[in-house]
């Protein structure tokens, strides 16, 4: 109600298109599988908040949020009875993959101006998953307060199918907006409802009419995740003391990451995860890091041992503003689960002397994604190395959807030279970038006085 919106249609006309029904509560059911996955992935120590930021500061709100996060209500509308046309098909989340396209459908602000906001859509991808049979899904489809309880759909050959229910549309971590949406797999909710019905026996049979409470397997998705899903094993977690970030393997021993991730160390630990069940820690030597004065925030790490197999990314040779892209990295969750995928478009290609020197995207990029790859969604080509998102320190706001990457075309000849000759001299060119490149990346520099923007 505090929103200052002025509906264009009159309330009477608008509400005439809506019908209100009284509903009975059949049951409120917990989904402990979701709670288990949630508690493993989202540590309380990391100051997570769900809902509006101002609510996060109210005493006791966090506990309430967490206690009810995994509860769902199952309602019956007695008078809503006509043949089941267009019935929603529920499908299992088990076969979802990171990068799969998802559609979220909800009504922002709940009962406030439903004629305007009811059933609005957003599109995103499966950013990450956790728990048994992918009970916890994170998507970058943008949702607003009030969309809790709304549906998340996957587009398969059989049409749009309900795969999850929105649990928390906005996530705040340590007072920074993350912008991912927490979703609970609908098959798990239905399973818990079924179990209650079995336990309660006749009592609920009377209340709850017979209906299919089974999610069927997800069909073949029409919007497949594309090549990015297969490139995930090339993305590694780089740990250096308490600092961690992301990196991308460009050959079997060499990975690229950011200077600020290796943090002046001579060696780092690299967590390699070729598949969700397997992870190993390999020591790596920092063979090159740009100087603080360099506009390019880059480091090169050589592993002590070569990887036996990994999907070697194809390096892009050109960029097309507006093309679909994905950022992959260990932002937000670190090593609590595998890398997250976020989607967007290449929003800008900044050039100096007709050569790209900076890429900007609309993907959500969070702390910990630094050094991760920027991939072209459709070709899978490696476009760049993510260097930073944006923070306005004057208001304390982080903008995850405004971020900057080093174009791979800047690095490709240097990597090729090093791979061929073992000579690191070529990387030193990055320390000799011209003033015009320095100006483009000026937000990267440490400020002399008040930091206006942290990169």
């Amino acid at each position: 109600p505090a929103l200052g919106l002025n509906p264009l249609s009159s309330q009477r006309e608008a509400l005439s298109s809506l019908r209100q029904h009284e509903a009975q509560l059949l049951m409120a059911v917990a989904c402990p599988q979701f709670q288990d996955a949630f508690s493993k992935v989202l540590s309380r120590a990391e100051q997570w908040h769900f809902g509006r930021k101002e609510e996060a500061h109210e005493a006791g709100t966090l506990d309430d949020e967490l206690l009810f996060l995994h509860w769902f209500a199952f309602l019956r509308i007695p008078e809503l009875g006509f043949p089941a046309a267009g019935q929603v098909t529920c499908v299992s989340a088990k076969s979802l993959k990171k990068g799969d396209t998802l559609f979220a459908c909800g009504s922002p602000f709940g009962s406030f101006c439903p004629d305007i906001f009811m059933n609005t859509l957003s599109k995103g991808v499966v950013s990450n998953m956790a728990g048994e049979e992918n009970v916890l899904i994170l998507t970058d489809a943008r949702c607003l307060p009030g969309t809790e309880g709304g549906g998340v759909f996957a587009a398969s050959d059989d049409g749009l199918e309900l795969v999850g229910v929105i649990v928390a549309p906005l996530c705040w971590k340590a007072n920074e907006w993350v912008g991912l949406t927490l979703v609970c797999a609908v098959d798990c909710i239905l399973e818990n409802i079924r179990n209650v019905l079995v336990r309660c026996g006749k009592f609920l049979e009377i209340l709850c009419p017979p209906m299919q409470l089974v999610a069927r397997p997800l069909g073949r998705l029409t919007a497949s995740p594309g090549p990015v899903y297969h490139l995930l094993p090339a993305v590694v977690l780089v740990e250096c003391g308490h600092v961690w970030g992301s990196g991308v393997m460009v050959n079997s021993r060499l990975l690229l990451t950011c200077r600020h991730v290796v943090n002046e160390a001579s060696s780092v630990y690299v967590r390699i995860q070729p598949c969700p069940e397997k992870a190993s820690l390999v020591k790596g030597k920092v063979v090159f890091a740009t100087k603080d004065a360099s506009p390019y925030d880059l480091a090169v790490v050589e592993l002590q041992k070569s990887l036996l197999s990994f999907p070697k990314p194809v390096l892009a040779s050109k960029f097309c503003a507006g093309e679909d892209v994905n950022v992959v990295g260990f932002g937000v969750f670190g090593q609590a689960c595998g890398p997250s995928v976020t989607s967007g478009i290449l929003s800008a290609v900044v050039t100096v002397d007709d050569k790209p020197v900076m890429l900007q995207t609309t993907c959500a990029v969070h702390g910990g994604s630094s050094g991760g790859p920027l991939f072209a969604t459709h070709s899978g080509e490696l476009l760049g190395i993510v260097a930073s998102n944006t923070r306005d320190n004057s208001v304390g706001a982080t903008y995850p959807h405004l971020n900057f990457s080093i174009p791979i075309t800047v690095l490709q000849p240097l990597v090729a030279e090093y791979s061929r000759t073992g000579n690191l001299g070529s990387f030193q060119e990055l320390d000799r970038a011209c003033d015009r490149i320095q100006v483009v990346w000026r937000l990267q520099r440490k400020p002399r006085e008040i930091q206006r923007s942290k990169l």
Partner: protein
Amino acid sequence: MFRNWDIARRNAGCVVSASSAPGTSVAPASPTQGPWSCSGIVLSHRPGIVLCHGAILSPFLVAAEQVDWSQRRVLLADSFSPDLRIQVLWPVENRSQAEGKILQDLEPSC
């Protein structure tokens, strides 16, 4: 795909609100009386079954349940205030659209 999407979403989405039934409480209106609202999904039209998030019901838990309810797997209607009123708001086009689809389905094909 988007035609399918349109049909699916129009039939699926609703707004669920929970409040205390008017006139059932002698105390002045308090924030716990709501209304609280969230989105919901119509899983089935016949019978009318809606799934939504459970948090909107939390202000209506009866005092006796507030001690250890979080250890439980299910809460039935008697765990909530007897004056809990749940309403579902739903686009009326759904009905005509759905009925239209049924008529279309019933039409003899050439």
